[in-house]
């Protein structure tokens, strides 16, 4: 019988094994140069090194699957293989990095798992931000911004290395450490809050040996959801820090001397037909895509949720009036409604958010109403009523909290749809103004050069795909974590 921790390591390694091989092969494919047929030596080298790491990964996976393997009593060989794999991060292989740390550590807590991803976010941000060093100039706050990021990375690495021992520190140090950790969350790294919450919870008396039942804890078992969370945190951090570390002028100012340049170290994703740096445009585009996506989900979540809760709780006439009105809204196709609103009131970010939000309200209201109908029939509502609580208290304290889980799942999944809708509208010339860096706008220019300069469409397309996939993975993860049948 394997221990829980051993299983965790095996599951993680199994999940990462395919990915690390795929990642290595991707580099090898990228190194092929057509016309004339040759290989790019640096890329080939990275691919080869990654293949090496993948081989070690495979080897370790083989060893941990043997029945002799015990997570708490690893052999020196296993430990050194794991340690070696951590260095895969140098070639950008985050899969061996994750597996390496998981296999290396003596014990695995929820906080530690989140810490790995937290540090990964920092590393990715610094790597991406550092690319600005190859530009003719950087922003005025660049050095300060980069220093803050590096300090954050160092601090987060310390937490990753020693955070599990937090219960042994004295209370003052604990409070300062957690406070500093929360402060570093201001960069936008969402995982910081999960790490802090995990360590705080672990540090409570009687927490040892408790069954892991919260969403936060159960989410760590879903590796795809964690990767989604990693990318979302990465983008959010990038969106927040880019204001200081990326020069907006590269994204919007035309540079007629550098039109349609192929990708290079100075222009990692090339330049578009106005000489603007596509890389900087995509980075700034994340600000709009994320904010529109989140707002266009939050607004219908609140409005639709409230309407659904009221109509589900009060029933009868109230229910009929609200739901029939919403049915009218539901009858209009969402994207068509958005196009009409934007065409009538003009293209701007505010109008876009309103246009997208309106279409989502009915579906949220329906979900909420169904949940509320189910919850109101349960005994604890009767009990609350018997105890003399009024309707307002019952709705706010008992009904809504118990009906929220499906809404959260739904909203995570909707953000992805909203991002796609934003990009679709911009692609049609109906979203934000054409010169504003937004993923749909960038993609639209790319579509005109699909044959001659395909990178103009590939990179913004990839960004959209990755963000939507990440939200879908995360949504699936949360759904599984909230489903009592999968406990």
């Amino acid at each position, binding site marked *: 019988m394997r221990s829980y921790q051993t299983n965790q390591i095996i599951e993680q390694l199994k999940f990462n094994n395919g990915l690390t091989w795929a990642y290595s092969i991707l580099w090898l494919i990228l190194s092929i140069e057509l016309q004339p047929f040759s290989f790019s030596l640096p890329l080939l080298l990275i691919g080869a090194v990654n293949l090496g790491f993948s081989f070690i990964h495979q080897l370790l996976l083989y060893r941990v699957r043997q029945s002799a393997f015990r997570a708490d009593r690893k052999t020196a060989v296993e430990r050194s293989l794991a340690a070696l794999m951590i260095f895969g991060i140098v070639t950008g292989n985050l899969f061996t990095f994750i597996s390496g740390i998981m296999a290396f550590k003596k014990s695995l807590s929820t906080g530690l798992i989140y810490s790995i991803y937290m540090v990964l976010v920092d590393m990715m941000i*610094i790597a991406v931000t*550092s690319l600005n*060093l190859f530009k*003719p*100039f*950087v*922003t*005025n706050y*660049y*050095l300060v911004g*980069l*220093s803050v990021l*590096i300090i954050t*990375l*160092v601090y987060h*690495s*310390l937490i990753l*290395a*020693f955070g599990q021992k937090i219960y042994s520190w004295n209370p003052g140090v604990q409070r300062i450490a957690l406070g500093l950790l929360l402060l570093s969350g201001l960069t936008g790294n969402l995982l910081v809050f999960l790490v802090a919450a995990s360590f705080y919870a672990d540090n409570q008396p009687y927490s040892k040996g408790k069954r892991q039942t919260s969403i936060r804890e159960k989410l760590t078992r879903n590796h795809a959801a964690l990767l989604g969370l990693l990318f979302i945190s990465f983008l959010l951090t990038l969106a927040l820090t880019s204001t200081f570390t990326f*020069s907006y*002028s590269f994204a*919007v*100012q*035309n540079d*007629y*001397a550098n*039109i349609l340049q192929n990708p290079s170290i100075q222009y990692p994703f090339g330049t578009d*037909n*106005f*000489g603007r740096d596509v890389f900087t445009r995509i980075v700034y585009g994340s600000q709009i895509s994320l904010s529109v996506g989140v707002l266009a989900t939050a607004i219908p979540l609140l409005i639709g949720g409230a309407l659904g809760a009221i109509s589900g709780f009060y029933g009868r006439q109230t229910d009929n009036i609200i739901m029939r009105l919403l049915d009218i809204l539901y009858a209009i196709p969402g994207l068509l409604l958005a196009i009409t609103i934007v*065409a009538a009131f003009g*293209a701007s970010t505010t109008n876009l958010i309103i246009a997208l939000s309106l279409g989502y309200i009915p579906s949220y209201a329906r979900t909420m109403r169904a949940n509320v109908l189910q919850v109101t029939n349960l005994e604890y509502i009767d009990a609350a009523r018997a105890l003399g609580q009024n309707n307002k208290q019952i709705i706010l304290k008992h009904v809504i909290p118990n009906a929220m889980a499906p809404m959260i799942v739904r909203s995570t999944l909707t953000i992805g749809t909203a991002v796609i809708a934003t990009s679709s509208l911009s692609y049609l*010339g*109906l979203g934000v*103004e*054409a*010169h504003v860096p937004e993923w749909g706008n960038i993609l639209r220019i790319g579509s*005109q*050069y699909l*044959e*001659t300069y395909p990178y103009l469409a590939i990179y913004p397309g990839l960004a959209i795909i990755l963000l939507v996939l990440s939200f879908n993975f995360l949504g699936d993860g949360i759904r599984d974590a909230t489903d009592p049948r999968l406990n």
Partner: protein
Amino acid sequence: MRRKLLPFLTIAASLSLAACDVQTEDEANSIPEDSESVETTEKISLELLGSAADETDLNIVRDQLNRNGFDVTLNTQPDYASYRSLRDAGNYDLSIASWTTVTGNPDYAVRSLFTSNGDNSIIDDEEVDALINEAALQTPDEYTETYDELEHELVDQEAYIVPLYNSLKAQAFNHDLLDPDTIRLSKSRAFAWEPVSYNDESMNDSETLMLTQTMSDLTSLDPIKGNDGSINQLNTNMYVRLVNLTDDDEVVSDGSLSYSHAIAEGNSDYYFVLRDDINFAAVEDMEAVDTGDMVSGSDVIYSLNRAKNPDAVPDHRTYSLHEHIDTVSLLSDLSELEETQLTDGSGSVLEALEAELDAPISSVVESADDVNNEAGNYQVIKLTTTEPFPQVLNYLAHQSAGIVSQEQVESINTYDIDNFDITTDVPYGDQRAVTEGDTYDNHLYASGPYIMIQKNDYEATFQKNPAYMNGTENEANIANVTVRFIGDEDSALSALRSEEIDLMYGLGETKYEVVEAEENLTLQSRQSNGVKYLMINVDSDRDVAQSADLRKSILYSINQDEISAAYDGLKLKAYTTVTPLVDTGNELIPDQSKVEEFYQNYEDSAE
């Protein structure tokens, strides 16, 4: 555990060391004290209007004005109609505007745009009016100077417009199928179908020539009732004219209804010798048939009189092009030709006209029945203009001067013109008459090389006119032509590459590369008469209308080289809409110091 920190510390240290060396944005943008460049000041806010199709131009203009300190608000309308309604309502400071001189003469390029009573004009300037009227009466040798003066007045004196660029015109075709020597690309006139031939001439009768155009909603197949991209190409090939334009915009009789033409002394009288080998074609049972009616002098008189008369038909869209025509008549007296001298004094009109004829003119006849060119009996049209106006010939070469059948048009247009109701009356040339379905009742009489058989939303089919200059080099080669309506340029190009269509007319600059990479395609391009410019809202109480200094400050912010760079370097410089037609040598040179100087003047005068 400490050792684990080492890589991070190393990276941190090396990055910080590297970072100390980089230049920040402020450092990069600060101007060294010893340099001569001018400091950019903050300027007023401007509203720039355009449609989504002008996206590239809007972005560049916005960018260039921004860099010169102006704060630009973009107003991008999704389609041309909504853009046009905002422009007509005057809701803009600057607006992207474009103009193509389809007649190939400079008067058409300026009259409707810049005169105080022009139908597209918001400018009211006596000096501009005077210059345009003066140039209209001059011959090409004389008018260069006048148009030069006009350009200075329009651009660097008053800055009513800000020129952006002059475009190329391009087409691509499949040279595996079509004979490249038979494909014409003209500067002004629409694509001519009749010379086109397949490489394998035996295919001309069996294979259908596949062409394309963007618009499927045809304004009208009556030549005088439309002047836009939906019918330009179609009407040009369905109706013959008195004269034609060559590829370089010279007026000639080749391939037209006249054997030859001449301008008489005084530049007011024009003579055309008509040919007798063109009959009207009609459609019977979906086949083009010869009606046996010759395209005669009386049809010419009828067609030109209705072309110049605004009340000839409801929705007359082209009368302003023909307002200089005074009278059109058939000559009855041969001696008039002998006695009249040519405008250049090189001989009599008769000599000039006969130089092109196989059989000399023995008599001029009025009745179509008496015409016999082989025997020397010709019909001669005399056209007089309201004032000496040599450019009238260009207007006669325009598709709106196409010759229609008097008999047929009068038999179809039986409605009462004052109570015309488009829902019940079907006037001549209405697309409902040729659209497949219940309303189909093809009443077209074509005088040109082709006639439309029918159309639907996807394509229009044509057949060759069986009695059009048979046996001459102008007889149409290919028997069947189909015009596919493909609204989107990218789709049309895909259709060309997949051999669904044989030739694509009108290709954007950024697609040249794609066409050149295809082995079976040939790209043809040349300078066009199309000019893009910024229209400044001078007919309003906005600041741009009040201050010429402010307008000039905007003018010198624009850099045409940079615009061209964004179009693969394929846009030509322009100064006004006259640039492609008259070589005045004027050029707009961006100048930052002038931008600041004129802006300072504007601010001083505003105080």
